[in-house]
């Protein structure tokens, strides 16, 4: 009984720590507003550029639009998130955080949630613009679970590797090189799911299941190995 209570207390402390780090990051971002604005503008620009690069017509819209949406999300996340963590490692907050007696898993989870929140804000802005610009027959409410789960998978990998890439000189270059090959399943699954919402088809493989499996597997692995990434 006592052991159970101790485990409960540990879990409680763990989530308090996660909340504290997350709140710190949110307040920092609310003051500077650099990441959100930059990422959001970038995502919108990618969507606009895609309109020009693929001469959009009614017959190819369903094939092109989901790809454009996800490329915008992924590029914006990669660019924005590589900056936040790099600044943290260079200017020192990360070192101070590591000095605190905080579970490394809590740090990872807080960073992941913060990154998810950044991307979510960008997505909330970009989704209606996407629907308007591409004029696609889609209901945003249906798309939300796919966007959320896909973003979780992408953010899991990006958070882990942006900490690694942040220590190198060529982080803006290195991060996409490491992340893109790893998130191939998410890219395929999310784009195909988005396409299916626009033009339903029968006998599709369980894409959502694949995305959820990816999320669970890599969230667990990242939580386990994060301590080796941050410690020198």
């Amino acid at each position, binding site marked *: 009984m006592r052991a159970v209570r101790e485990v409960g207390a540990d879990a409680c402390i763990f989530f308090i720590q996660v909340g504290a780090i997350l709140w710190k990051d949110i307040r920092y971002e609310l003051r500077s507003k650099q990441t959100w604005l930059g990422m959001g503008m970038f995502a919108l620009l990618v969507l606009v550029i895609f309109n020009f690069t693929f001469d959009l017509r009614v017959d190819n819209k369903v094939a092109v639009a989901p790809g454009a949406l996800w490329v915008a999300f992924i590029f914006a996340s990669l660019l924005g998130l590589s900056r936040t963590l790099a600044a943290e490692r260079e200017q020192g907050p990360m070192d101070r955080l590591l000095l605190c007696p905080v579970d490394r898993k809590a740090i990872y989870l807080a960073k992941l949630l913060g990154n998810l929140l950044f991307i979510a804000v960008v997505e909330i802005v970009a989704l209606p613009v996407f629907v308007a610009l591409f004029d696609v027959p889609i209901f945003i409410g249906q798309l939300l679970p796919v966007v959320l789960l896909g973003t979780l998978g992408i953010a899991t990998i990006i958070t*882990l590797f942006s900490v690694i890439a942040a220590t*190198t000189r060529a982080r803006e270059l290195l991060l996409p090189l490491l992340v893109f090959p790893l998130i191939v399943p998410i890219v395929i699954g999310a784009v195909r799911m988005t396409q299916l919402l626009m033009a339903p088809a029968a006998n599709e493989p369980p894409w959502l299941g694949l995305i959820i499996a990816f999320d669970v597997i890599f969230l667990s692995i990242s939580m386990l190995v994060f301590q080796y990434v941050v410690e020198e």
Partner: protein
Amino acid sequence: MAVTKQETSVEHQGSTGKLERQGFPIASLILGTLSSIGILTAIWMIFLYAPLDAVEGPPQRIFYFHVPIAWVGMLSFCILAVAGIIYIITKDERWDWLARASAEIGLVFITFVLITGSIWGRTTWGTWWTWDPKLTASLILWFMYVGYIMLRSYMGRATSSAYAGAVLAIVGVVDVPIIYLSVQWWRGLHPSAEVGVPQSALPPSVVLTLMVSLVSFTLLYSFLMVQVYQLQRLQALAQRLRAIVE
């Protein structure tokens, strides 16, 4: 004080290095001889012993190179990940040298897989490339190898670099089967050429040739591993000595 301490540690490293060096030429010699004999035999078998494929003709012979090289390329990534896991657990530098060696050789082999596969595909299916699961997984594996080597060269020889490499290898090795599955599902809707080895009714001479080729390329891989491992060890040692001098 610190300098003397470092010097003794290097001397110590040097003495263990000598011990390893004594064992090194013998293993290297045996593996080198075996793999060169094996590869010569394999080449003879591939071009003279194995029967000519009735449908595909001579280009089919590239299959005897392609499959063993692909096997070594995959094996190398598994060894990379296992070495990474053991490094994380034991923190023994030698496992990191093994991982680096595995990545360098694996990249070479996977590159040859893509090249030989493309040539074979061109003659058989009439196209250099198709987004088949096996091909796509090999290509992604190639990108992972390149990413790994770039990461390691950017981060230098610090402990953090070894940890980062191990993490990348672990995540990568779990990801490859998922990528394979997702590409398989993705292409499931489209009529794609059934790629791969003809599974049924292989004549015994084909199987024998393939086996000889597989064994010889694995021997070649282990021979190269010994060489590159030694190179990694010497590079680490040289860098430590340079740090003392500077």
